[in-house]
């Protein structure tokens, strides 16, 4: 029996957990122990549903670094999470080190976990990264802008890289590491990189990526109950806390359609107030395979997992990105021709946009082309391959790569 620790350190939503869940279940079936260390315990508990996996809290930076401009690059993102201070970073890395000592994993699979990676380097724990393109940036120096449509100066990228690199190296020294990083992207050096996407949905353009394919949990969740009304079936997956929710629901309720909404984080009691004869609301996860098979269009904020799942099911989308990470996915899927994008800051006509997508067959057609091209993904793959590789990495034949 081998032990695997799945580590999710930064970012929100359910995607980080659902990405690895199917693989975790395969590994457990093979007799291995899988422990999850996660940023958001309550959300994870809900997402896991009937699957009882041991959950631990990931180390977190609980202070604030106010007054920073919007992040343009990965290093600037890290400055929002304690990477401006070597002592704070060392504190979090030590939290991970203690976790590794306690759990004693044969392999750590790290999803958006820079500090988990640092600690794994220091401890010489075998490690793999997992994530969409956004969480496994290409090995460039300085690390590139993730807002390519903005003219971000080379000087700014260089400065952020230098500042964070110095802090990381000072923390490594404090933790007793023997070596320093020469460029920040070395942070992502690992025994394997499970880049869970395809080139068309990659957040970065890269030449050397090995793509494992999109990963998400489509089997968990409740069985969908569509309202029994005429018209197209519209599936909406937006955060229950999204500011534009009321307007969207208003417009949807005026449509001749059957609308099913999954609104995680929706305030208790508000689900009822939105529900109607043509509209049903769930605050709990729904079984995505079935929802997507049955719907005609997906409305979402362009989280990578939902978009990939919709495309693999051959469904077109209306995407409403909120964060840069979602915007990059939204851009890609619009480029594919399978979606329209809403600028949430404008006053969008949701109804008209949905009608356009449904009445112009080319959106669904583009989605179906994607589904055909990648028909090998979505059921057993890429999970079986990832699980197999994890098992190989967990065998004690070779030592993990230290610093």
């Amino acid at each position: 029996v081998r032990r695997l620790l799945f580590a999710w350190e930064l970012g929100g939503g359910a995607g980080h957990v659902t990405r690895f869940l199917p693989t975790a279940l395969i590994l457990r079936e093979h007799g291995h122990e899988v422990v999850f260390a996660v940023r958001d315990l309550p959300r994870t508990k809900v997402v896991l549903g009937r699957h009882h996996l041991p959950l631990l809290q990931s180390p977190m930076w609980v202070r604030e670094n106010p007054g920073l401009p919007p992040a343009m690059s990965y290093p600037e993102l890290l400055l929002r999470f304690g990477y401006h201070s070597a002592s704070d970073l060392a504190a979090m890395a030590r939290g991970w080190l203690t976790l590794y000592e306690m759990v004693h994993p044969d392999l750590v699979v790290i999803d958006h976990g820079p500090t988990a990676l640092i600690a794994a380097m220091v401890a010489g724990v075998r490690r793999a990264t997992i994530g969409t393109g956004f969480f496994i940036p290409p090995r460039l120096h300085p690390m590139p802008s993730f807002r390519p449509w903005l003219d971000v100066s080379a000087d700014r990228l260089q400065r952020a890289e230098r500042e964070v690199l110095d802090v990381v190296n000072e923390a490594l020294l404090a933790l007793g590491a023997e070596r320093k990083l020469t460029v920040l992207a070395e942070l992502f050096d690992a025994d394997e990189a499970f880049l869970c996407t395809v080139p068309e949905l990659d957040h970065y353009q890269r030449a050397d990526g090995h793509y494992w394919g999109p990963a998400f949990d489509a089997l968990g969740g409740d069985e969908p109950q569509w309202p029994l009304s005429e018209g197209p079936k519209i599936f909406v997956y937006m955060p229950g806390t999204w500011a534009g929710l009321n307007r969207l629901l208003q417009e949807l309720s005026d449509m001749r359609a059957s609308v099913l909404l999954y609104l995680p984080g929706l305030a208790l009691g508000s689900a009822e107030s939105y529900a109607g004869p043509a509209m049903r609301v769930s605050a709990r996860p729904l079984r995505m395979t079935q929802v997507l098979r049955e719907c005609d269009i997906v409305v979402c904020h362009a989280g990578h997992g939902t978009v990939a799942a919709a495309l693999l099911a051959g469904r077109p989308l209306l995407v409403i990105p909120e964060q840069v990470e979602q915007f990059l996915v939204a851009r890609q899927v619009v480029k594919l021709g399978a979606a329209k994008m809403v600028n949430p800051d404008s006053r969008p006509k949701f109804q008209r946009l949905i009608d356009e997508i449904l009445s112009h067959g080319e959106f669904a057609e583009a989605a179906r082309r994607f589904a055909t091209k990648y028909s090998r993904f979505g059921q057993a793959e890429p999970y079986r391959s990832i699980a197999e590789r994890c098992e190989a990495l967990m065998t004690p034949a070779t030592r993990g790569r230290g610093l």
Partner: protein
Amino acid sequence: MGRVLFACELAYGYGRIAGALPVAIGLRERGHQIMFAVRDLTAAEWFLAPHGLRAVQAPIRVPADDSLSEPRAYSEILARLGYLDVTGLDGLVVGWRTLLHEFAPDLLVANHSPTALVASRGLTVRRVVLGDGFSSPPRTMPLPGFPSHADALLSSLAETETRIVENINAVLASVDAPSIEAVADLLGVDEDFLCTFPELDHYSGRSAPRYWGPLFVASEGAIPVWSSGGHPRIFAYVGPNHPQFDTILRGLIELSWPVLVHAPGVASSIMRRYRSSCLSVAAEPVHMARVTDESDVVVCHAGHGTVAVALLGGRPLVLFPRSAEQTMTADNIVRYGAGKSVLQGPGAPSVRRQVQAIVDDPRYAKRSQEFRAHYGAFRREEQIQAITARCAELLAGP
């Protein structure tokens, strides 16, 4: 030998972790293995790492629910933690239970850690509560409102408590753990180390309490360096995120007395705004016993540990409370007469004048000296010895 988990779920700042440190060291010296689970790992880096004590992240709710108003009772603290939502609570409890399973402690020391107490119900681990009066409210049903909110409707507190108890029981049932009837049942443990003095107790009206004396760390941290040799000298412990940080610092500088400011973790870019020949700044912990001894007055938020060190050193206090917990301690000091809360807001005299008035009035210094004399027999080493001995007894127990 035994394994001991110190749970510091609600330790904002570093006071509680620093306070538990001597107990942890004492238990380690007896051969036990120690682990901390803390809310703020940065504080662990300051106080635990230098002693080779290890810490993991305590389960924490992200993002915090800021929609609720300031708590008026212990149960409302639980509400802010997410206890009004059964899925939120469930996630935190699962996190604690995995930690309890992985580290497998023989003794859980709950230092203001309600969810660790929920999660450990029904397990074989022995459990104690360690902390000031605030973290160990009198076991009534419902739990009392904070004295500063005596006007809080008991019925509304009872209603909140009922909902919380329902949610706790739902989660406990899912893991086959024994249910509770009231939140007070959570605090029914093998020992209640009520670490304060009656004068500093956040609550009054306990039935037959045993006071173990306040916890604090007096001898960790840097030796103070004053800007000049004159008197009176002010030691100010002010968090950089205190809403009045700027007003307080500018007021102290105006006095032109030597002032040593301990602003934990403050960025040097911020401190550059306060260049003054009378001011020195420490961003990292300072040697509290020494700095108190060398100062004439202590300015602080009314954190329980800082206040205890100041009074045991016979120093009067100028208080800027910012939480309910600190307001309760500040009220205790004012009642005792060893210090004053600074009035804030429009119409209030300047900070400079208010501090000057406290320093100039000999009654405050006299009362703090009386406190010092009253507890002259209190020995921290004996207190730590007594606590660790009792823990060791529980660890050895049947």
